[in-house]
C-alpha cells in the first residue's frame, strides 16, 4: 500500500476543505477503499477520515413522512431498523443480500453508494483499464466478460455498478444530500452514478471535496411497502455480487396496479431504471403477460458486450420473477436467504 497522510477533521466544513485538495480520498469504514489501496488500484496521498463527524449516524423520520439516513449509518443497522424495514422492505432486503454480516456491520450508507466496480480488469493493475487509468484501454472487452454490462456501456468501459442497495433506492426516487465547496446541494440518486461514455474514470457526478452527508427517501416510497421485493441472481448462494438483480415495487388498488417501480442491477455502470417498463403496468392487472411486456421494455436496447448475451434473458426473467413476487406480497419477514429467486419465502435453499 502506498504511503498516505491521515487527517481526521472535526467538522464537515474542515473535511470538505481537506478532501478538495488533489490526491485526497474520504475514509469511512474503508471496506472497499482499503481493499483497493492494498491492491494498488486506489493510491490516495491523503485519507480524510470522516468517521467522527458529528450528526451523520442517525436514521430520522421527518414529519413529511419520508426518511433521512445519515451517510455514516452502517448497512446492518439500517437493514435491522424495524421501522425502516417495514416501510422500505425491498431496500432492507437488498442490504441484507449484499456482502457478509461482518462487512455490513462496518460498511456505511455513503460508502455503499460510492463503491467501485468489481470488474476484474479494474482490480488487476497489470491489465489496461480506462476506469483505473484514463486512456489506457480496456482489457475486459476481449477478456473474461460474461459478467459485464449489457446496457449503457461505451467503447471504453463495460464495467457494472456492484451495489445491491442502490437498485431499490433508485426505483424509489432516493435523493442524495451533498456538502461541497459551494455548500449543501441535493441530487436524485439516479443522477449520482455516471455512464462511462468517454470518461469511464469518473464514476459519479461528484466533484473533489464533495461529501455525501445523507440519503433521503420520499414519503411516497412507503406506498409500495406491501408489494416490494429485491431479487438477485448470484454465482454462489451467498456473499456474492449480483449477476443480475431487480427491485420491483407495486402499489395495488382494487386488484389493479396503480403505480409500478422497477430498477435493474448488474447490467450497467449505474442502477438501471426504465420508466416505460413501469408505465406499461399502470392501470393493468398484475398478470404474467403484463410483467413480460414490462421486462421486454426494461431490457430494450440491451446488447452483449462480450460473452454475456445470457444476461439479457436472465435479466428479463428476474424482472418477471421480481414483479410476480412483489404482486404476491412482501414477505412477513425477510427470507432466510435475502433476495434469492430460488428460495421459498419460508426457507432458503443453501447449496
Amino acid at each position, binding site marked *: 500500500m502506498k*504511503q498516505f497522510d491521515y487527517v481526521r477533521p472535526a467538522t464537515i466544513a474542515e473535511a470538505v476543505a481537506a478532501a478538495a485538495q488533489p490526491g485526497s480520498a474520504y475514509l469511512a469504514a474503508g471496506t472497499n477503499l482499503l481493499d483497493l489501496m492494498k491492491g494498488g488500484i486506489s493510491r490516495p496521498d491523503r485519507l480524510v477520515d470522516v468517521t467522527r463527524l458529528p450528526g451523520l449516524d442517525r436514521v430520522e423520520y421527518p414529519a413529511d413522512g419520508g426518511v433521512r439516513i445519515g451517510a455514516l449509518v452502517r448497512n446492518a443497522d439500517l437493514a435491522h431498523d424495524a421501522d425502516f424495514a417495514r416501510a422500505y422492505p425491498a431496500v432492507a432486503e437488498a442490504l441484507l443480500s449484499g456482502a457478509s454480516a461482518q462487512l455490513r*456491520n462496518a460498511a456505511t450508507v455513503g460508502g455503499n453508494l460510492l463503491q467501485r466496480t468489481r470488474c476484474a480488469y479494474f482490480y488487476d493493475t497489470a491489465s489496461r483499464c480506462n476506469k483505473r487509468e484514463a486512456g489506457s484501454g480496456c482489457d475486459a472487452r476481449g477478456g473474461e466478460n460474461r459478467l459485464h454490462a449489457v446496457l449503457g456501456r461505451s467503447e471504453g468501459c463495460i464495467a457494472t455498478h456492484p451495489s445491491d442497495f442502490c437498485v431499490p433506492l433508485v426505483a424509489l426516487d432516493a435523493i442524495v444530500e451533498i456538502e461541497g465547496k459551494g455548500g449543501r446541494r441535493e441530487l436524485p440518486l439516479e443522477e449520482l452514478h455516471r455512464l462511462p461514455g468517454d470518461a469511464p474514470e469518473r464514476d459519479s457526478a461528484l466533484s473533489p471535496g464533495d461529501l455525501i452527508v445523507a440519503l433521503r427517501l420520499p414519503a411516497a416510497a412507503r406506498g409500495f411497502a406491501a408489494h416490494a421485493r429485491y431479487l438477485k441472481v448470484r454465482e454462489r448462494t451467498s456473499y456474492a455480487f449480483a449477476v443480475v438483480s431487480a427491485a420491483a415495487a407495486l402499489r395495488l388498488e382494487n386488484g389493479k396496479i396503480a403505480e409500478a417501480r422497477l430498477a435493474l442491477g448488474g447490467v450497467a455502470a449505474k442502477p438501471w431504471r426504465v420508466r416505460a417498463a413501469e408505465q406499461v403496468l399502470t392501470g393493468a392487472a398484475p398478470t404474467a403477460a403484463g410483467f413480460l411486456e414490462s421486462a421486454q421494455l426494461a431490457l430494450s436496447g440491451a446488447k452483449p458486450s462480450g460473452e454475456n448475451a445470457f444476461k439479457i434473458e436472465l435479466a428479463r426473467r428476474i424482472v418477471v420473477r421480481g414483479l410476480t413476487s412483489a404482486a404476491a406480497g412482501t414477505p412477513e419477514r425477510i427470507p432466510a436467504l435475502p433476495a434469492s429467486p430460488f428460495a421459498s419465502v419460508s426457507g432458503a435453499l443453501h447449496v
Partner: protein
Amino acid sequence: MTNSISLTVNGARREFVLDDPRVTLLDLLRERLQLTGTKKGCDRGQCGACTVLVDGKRINSCLALAISHDGADILTIEGIARGDQLHPVQAAFITHDGFQCGFCTPGQIMSAIGMIREAQAGDDPERIRECMSGNLCRCGAYAGIVDAVLEVQAGQDEAKQRLSA
C-alpha cells in the same frame, strides 16, 4: 507523522504510537500485541479469518485501519474464555467437530458470538448458514459449525426461559 491511539483489547486498555497510518487493526493485534489467534487469511475481506468484535460487533479486522478506531473496544479469540473455562461457543465447536485444520476457527467462533448477539438467525439452520457466510472454511466443517451454533443458541433460549419462568 506519529499518531497515538488507545484501544481496549480483551478488557485491558492499551496505548499505541503509530508511526505509519497504514497499520490495520489485524496487524496491530498480531504484530504489536502478539495476539496471533486472529488469523490473516486473504487480508482482503473475503475469508473472515480475521473476524473480531469491535464495540460488540463483528467486523473484518483486515479492512479496518487501527488509527481510525481510536477508543474502540476490541474482543478477540484470546479474550473469550474465563481462565480454563471455555466460552460456550468454543466448547460447542469441540463437541460438534466444528473444525479440522483450525485456521478459520478463531474467526468462525468470533463471528458466531457476534451473530448470536445480533439475534437475527435464532435457531433456524438456514438463517445461521446465511449469517455465517462471511466465514469460509476450506476443510468444509460447515455442518459441525452450524450444529455448534445451534447448540449454543438452544442453551441461551433455555436459560432465557428459566429466567422468565
